[in-house]
């Protein structure tokens, strides 16, 4: 019998192991039913942008909000904040983040990963990186299409708005990183993580943001809103809504807090995975 050679001694480190888990997981994640479903969801803003573009073409006066003409950049900014950052990014975070390990447990493939000479936290980290790349790849085309459809309306200029597009994409990536890490912790520590995640994203966060005080610092959205650079149309319902969020931290404070949130929640999630027993149903 021919014996296979044995790999050199010395277990791969945490990041190296995470990279290998990432390689294994990315393809699975990209072509999962979840990605197909959420890809369809990401078509929603594109449809809306298409409708706006058609309306702007048909009605030369452009889109008015409370009688005030809204430029393409402002509408794009609203869509980034209201549709992407406040809805799509948390949805992606909840659905992928809570299932990073749960999917492997449900599919009973976790055994293959947990019986390898790598820390269990590397499995979580690798799958988290795969989630980030996967979701960015899902969001990117949607945002780009919305940008090219919406910005030219209302006398907007693509060239002038392009730098803000890059900033918006960076902001969305940061949002995905933060929500993904928070929901990875929820997924590894709590029962019914999906329900709790949805309650956090669409119950706790919007409610707490409406009230003054310190509670809003226990949200991800509070720090993300400081990164929104778009100017919103004035004297409108949207601008009134935005007034509620006026109390925002500085960009540097937000970035620092978001980095702490990502680091801390991932560390805690990693600890939970290391300690927890996963009993597969027969």
């Amino acid at each position, binding site marked *: *019998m*021919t*014996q*296979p*050679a*044995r*790999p*050199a*001694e*010395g*277990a*791969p480190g945490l990041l190296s*192991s995470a990279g*290998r*888990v990432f*390689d*294994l997981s990315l*393809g*699975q994640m990209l*072509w999962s039913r979840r990605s197909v479903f959420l890809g369809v969801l990401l078509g929603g803003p594109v449809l809306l942008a298409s409708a706006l573009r058609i309306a702007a073409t048909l009605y030369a006066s452009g889109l008015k909000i409370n009688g005030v003409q809204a430029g393409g950049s402002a509408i794009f900014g609203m869509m980034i904040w209201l549709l992407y950052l406040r809805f799509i990014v948390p949805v992606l975070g909840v659905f992928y983040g809570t299932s990073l390990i749960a999917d492997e447990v449900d*599919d*009973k*493939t976790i*055994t*293959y*990963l*947990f*019986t*390898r*000479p*790598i*820390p*269990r936290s590397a499995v979580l980290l690798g799958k988290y990186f795969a989630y980030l790349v996967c979701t960015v790849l899902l969001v990117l085309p949607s945002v780009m299409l919305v940008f090219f459809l919406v910005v030219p309306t209302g006398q907007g200029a693509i060239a002038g708005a392009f730098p803000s597009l890059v900033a918006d994409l960076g902001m969305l990536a940061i949002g995905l990183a933060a929500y993904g890490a928070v929901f990875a912790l929820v997924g590894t520590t709590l029962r019914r993580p999906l329900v709790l995640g949805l309650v956090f994203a669409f119950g706790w966060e919007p409610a707490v943001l409406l009230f003054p005080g310190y509670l809003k610092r226990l949200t991800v959205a509070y720090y993300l809103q400081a990164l929104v650079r778009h100017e919103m149309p004035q004297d409108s319902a949207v601008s009134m809504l935005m007034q509620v969020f006026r109390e925002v931290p500085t960009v540097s404070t937000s970035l620092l807090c978001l980095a702490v949130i990502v680091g801390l929640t991932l560390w805690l999630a990693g600890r939970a995975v*290391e300690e927890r*027993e*996963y*009993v*597969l149903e*027969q």
Partner: protein
Amino acid sequence: MTAGDLVTAEHLSKWYGQVIGLNDVSVTVPAGITGLLGPNGAGKSTLMKLVTGQLKPSKGSLTVLGEPIWRNPALYRRIGFCPEQDAFYDRMTGLEWVTALVRLNGATDALAGAMAGRALEMVELTDAAHKKIGAYSKGMRQRVKMAQALAHDPDLLILDEPLAGMDPIARRKTIRMIKDWGRAGKGVIVSSHILHEIESMTANILLINQGRILAEGNVHQIRDLIDEHPHTVHVRADQTRALAREFLGHDDVLSLKFEEGAVVVQTGRPDAFYTRLTDLAASGEHGAIHEVTSPDDNLQAVFQYLVKS
């Protein structure tokens, strides 16, 4: 415990809430091939999961290859595990999947590919290496699971129901491979609920039921152990009532019952019973004795016997 022992458990218990999975098990698994036998729900899977570090002991201690296994990932370098569940990344090809898993053992891309290729060759899946696992038959899926377990050349191979779903030819080849692996000085722990499968691989077995080890050691030693317990003999004859009267005249006969054309006897001293029976058959005193069988003549009965006791 000796230096070459594969697994040592001392007062090992595992509870799932109120349910006992394994109950105060103390056992040593020696080098070589050991079969773990037990019916579904006996505690085999719990023991396998403890030995592979997927579960943490509730009580007692467990060492694998001389080291505790729980939260000791470095030890997986020396262990290959083929789980029972039929679970895969179905979109990957067999070669991609085994390569990806071997990479987790620290192999470089090139080495991992070569090792995966060799492992697939060992399980005779080279021709299907580039097919998606989702298109594999049940037997092929079992074999690709074996490949991922042995690809990194482990010192200890742990196989949970490895022959399930295999066709007879693949089964025979896999048994031969496992025996070769043992002959090459590797440790193998293989579980099954079918005794003849285990018997074809090894004489060294552990019998487990209801979370306890019922017996351990060589098959022959276990047979001796069985001989201390009531032994059932099925005698098909013309004059079963006359034979029954004859049997009841001896104190080693513990009970008997009639079946169609046969009498089933339970004896405490099988050797003495068989000697008398042979004499009766030779004399023809109570008519012809057509067939004498004992469910204890095969390992399945040995196992069932111990499980019932």
